[in-house]
């Protein structure tokens, strides 16, 4: 009895929320992020930025050509099973179903690749996810946009080359790759090995077990190796721990280069003084001094709305990353509308077309109020990454300071590896790659 009433209530509530949203002229975007658990700091920041930007578009422009954005939050807990549940729950909502999904977890992205492709809902993983999905011929519905992990890694090596005074100077240098022992952490091992061979540097891979608050042994080893650089491929609590451990081991922090998931205020502030000088990669910058953030303040927060309870987090690296997520969402919808009919809600299939034909240049970024905030983007059927450049920023003890311009990645090296890896996936799965010359 108890179970049937429970089930009935569940059916009723699912049916109810779907019915309430079933109105025309709305574009439904699932907000499947995480607000609890060990990674809540990043999840809630990104969710806040992503939702606030859509809210701002609704308030300022009335949505995209009169089609307003709607969204519904679902807690994934950074857990694959919950992420899949949220995806299944959200995919049919709104007049046209889910526009696209930002899974915000490499694990959930992996779990959704086949489901999204079957349901015709684009899976957009900005700066994370499956690297070889950059080959759009084999992964039509997956978009690891802006920069994937491999590209970013080549940019890091370029940055080290710049500091050394030329790529040929990297010969004989020692680099330690300190990584989170997970799918995410291991993703760059092959590309680093390939580069080590190419440039003649030595690379040592050191794993840090999840969650990463125990790093004494690894830093002892680093002290023995005395590397020229340490690449910090961390996530969550692992980052401040590594920075503090580096201080204790006497390793200079300005020789540590973090991935962009190790380059937020949440990673450096807990480390205190130790973080001064620490360098991290970024595909978006921190700060509120951009027209797009000012517009959010004016149109959303000034009206007493907005997601962030703690207003000081507006403009943080994670918040701004959420804004980048939603700029991509809204621009893909705009592009799709230009092709399939302005002022209509778009289906996932149409948004996929929009994403694949997305082209944001510097002039357009200025119009969006986001020049220097993110990089220009040009996506194509072949290339689902679309950007590939990275900035480097350094923590000065109070805030992140950008220290380089956009450093492009080494696509000559990365692209063949991506194609080889994607081809292997296609072979395992029996997928025939699309012919890009036939795509319109």
């Amino acid at each position: 009895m108890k179970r049937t009433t429970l089930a009935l209530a569940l059916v009723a509530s699912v049916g109810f929320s779907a019915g309430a949203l079933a109105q025309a002229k709305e574009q439904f975007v699932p907000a499947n992020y995480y607000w609890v658990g060990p990674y809540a700091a990043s999840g809630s920041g990104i969710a806040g930025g992503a939702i606030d930007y859509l809210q701002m578009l609704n308030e300022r422009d009335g949505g995209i050509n009169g089609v307003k954005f709607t969204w519904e939050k679902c807690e994934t807990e950074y857990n694959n099973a919950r992420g899949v549940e949220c995806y299944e729950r959200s995919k049919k909502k709104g007049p046209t179903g889910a526009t696209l999904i930002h899974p915000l977890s490499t694990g959930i992205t992996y779990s959704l690749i086949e489901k999204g492709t079957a349901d015709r809902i684009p899976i957009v993983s900005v700066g994370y996810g499956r690297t070889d999905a950059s080959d759009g011929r084999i992964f039509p519905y997956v978009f690891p946009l802006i920069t994937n992990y491999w590209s970013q890694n080549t940019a890091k090596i370029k940055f080290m080359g710049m500091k050394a005074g030329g790529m040929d100077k990297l010969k004989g240098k020692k680099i330690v790759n300190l990584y989170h022992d997970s799918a995410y952490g291991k993703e760059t091992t092959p590309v680093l090995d390939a580069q080590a061979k190419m440039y003649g540097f030595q690379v040592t891979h050191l794993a840090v077990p999840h969650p990463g608050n125990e790093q004494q042994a690894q830093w002892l080893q680093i002290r023995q190796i005395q590397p020229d650089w340490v690449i910090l491929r961390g996530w969550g609590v692992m980052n401040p721990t590594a920075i503090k451990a580096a201080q204790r081991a006497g390793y200079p922090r300005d020789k540590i280069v973090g991935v962009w998931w190790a380059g937020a205020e949440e990673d450096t502030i807990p480390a205190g003084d130790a973080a001064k000088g620490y360098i991290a990669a970024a595909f978006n910058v921190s700060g509120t001094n951009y027209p797009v953030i000012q517009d959010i303040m004016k149109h959303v927060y000034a009206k007493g709305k907005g997601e962030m309870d703690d207003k000081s987090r507006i403009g943080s690296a994670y918040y701004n990353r959420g804004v980048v997520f939603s700029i991509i969402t809204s621009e893909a919808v705009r592009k799709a509308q230009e092709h399939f009919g302005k002022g209509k809600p778009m289906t996932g299939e149409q948004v996929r077309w929009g994403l694949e034909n997305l082209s944001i240049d510097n002039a357009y970024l200025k119009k969006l109020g986001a020049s220097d905030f993110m990089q220009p983007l040009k996506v194509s059927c072949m290339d689902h990454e679309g950007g590939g450049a990275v900035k480097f920023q350094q923590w000065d003890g109070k805030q992140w300071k950008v220290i380089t311009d956009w450093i492009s990645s080494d696509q000559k090296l990365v692209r063949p590896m991506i194609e080889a890896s994607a081809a292997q996936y296609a072979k395992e799965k029996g997928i025939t790659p699309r012919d890009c010359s036939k795509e319109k």
Partner: protein
Amino acid sequence: MLYREAGQFKATYAQDQQIFPIRQDRIAFALLLAAAFIVVPLIANQYWLSAILTPFLILSLATLGLNILTGYAGQLSLGTAAFMAVGAFMAYNFVLRMPWLGVIPSFILAGLCAAAVGIVFGLPSLRIKGFYLAVATLACQFFVLWAIQRIGWITNYSASGVITAQKIEIFAYAFDTPVRKYLLTLAIVAVMALLAKNLMRSETGRAFMAVRDMDVAASVIGIPIMKTKLLAFAISSFYCGVAGGLYAYTYLGTVEPEAFTLDLSFRILFMVIIGGVGSILGSFMGAAFITLLPIFLSVLFGGISHATGMEISHAVVSNLEVIIFGGLIIFFLIVEPQGLARLWQIAKEKLRLWPFPH
């Protein structure tokens, strides 16, 4: 009034020993099975099938596996997720390297691999008991994940350690839609649950319980302790291994070693405790409670904020869900420490007297 066995006479031993001795139970169970196999695929949508029912069935199977070991044989284990991982990754390898084998035999072989690992890590149970044994199985949890992450062969040299399950085809029939995957899972779970139920009513099952209740006494009456304990580990790991294979193939489709962390082991142990230690039915109830309640709460809060138009901070709601979930667990354990299955049994006994309790 309806639930009364008056007039039902047992004339043979077979009748006396059947799983459901009361006719009403047999009818109810037949109806339940019919509903699960016929009605649910007809009426349930994709969300229900692939996000709720399939994972519920798979976790029920894993809980059943742990219940055989912990509930019936009395050996506390924290290695459940590791056995599932062995099942998932070995199923992948069998399908990959021996495609002529077929999926079901691959699952069985993967289950046997998990059983072998279970026997190895069950060896300490011959010397240690209780919490100390739990620590030994903890080693299994860490070792298996470590091995999967380090040995490239297991993940077919995937750089990130993630595997994607191949398509499921049995006799050229593809199980590719949520309905078909659900039916496949349901069939496997139903068969294995029946086997488990019968096994626990057999000599083996009674030997398990004797060892659980007092192993010295059990050995005195002639039960081989070593064989019984290792058999319990093997059978339990086999069930968990098959559940792991299903988790990869019919549920997530893609698995990484991190999907099988200690966290999952604990969750399955909680399912056993909440559902009822040493009960087949309890395994299903516990799995339902732990997997469905958080989803129900999150949908409920979504509905409430829609209906009332109240803007509650989502971070508060998310944390509230976790708090209520924890509160309910404690509530149920206080009301009935022996689990939901015991609650169900009490309800049945009350029902027999209803409406004239004496």
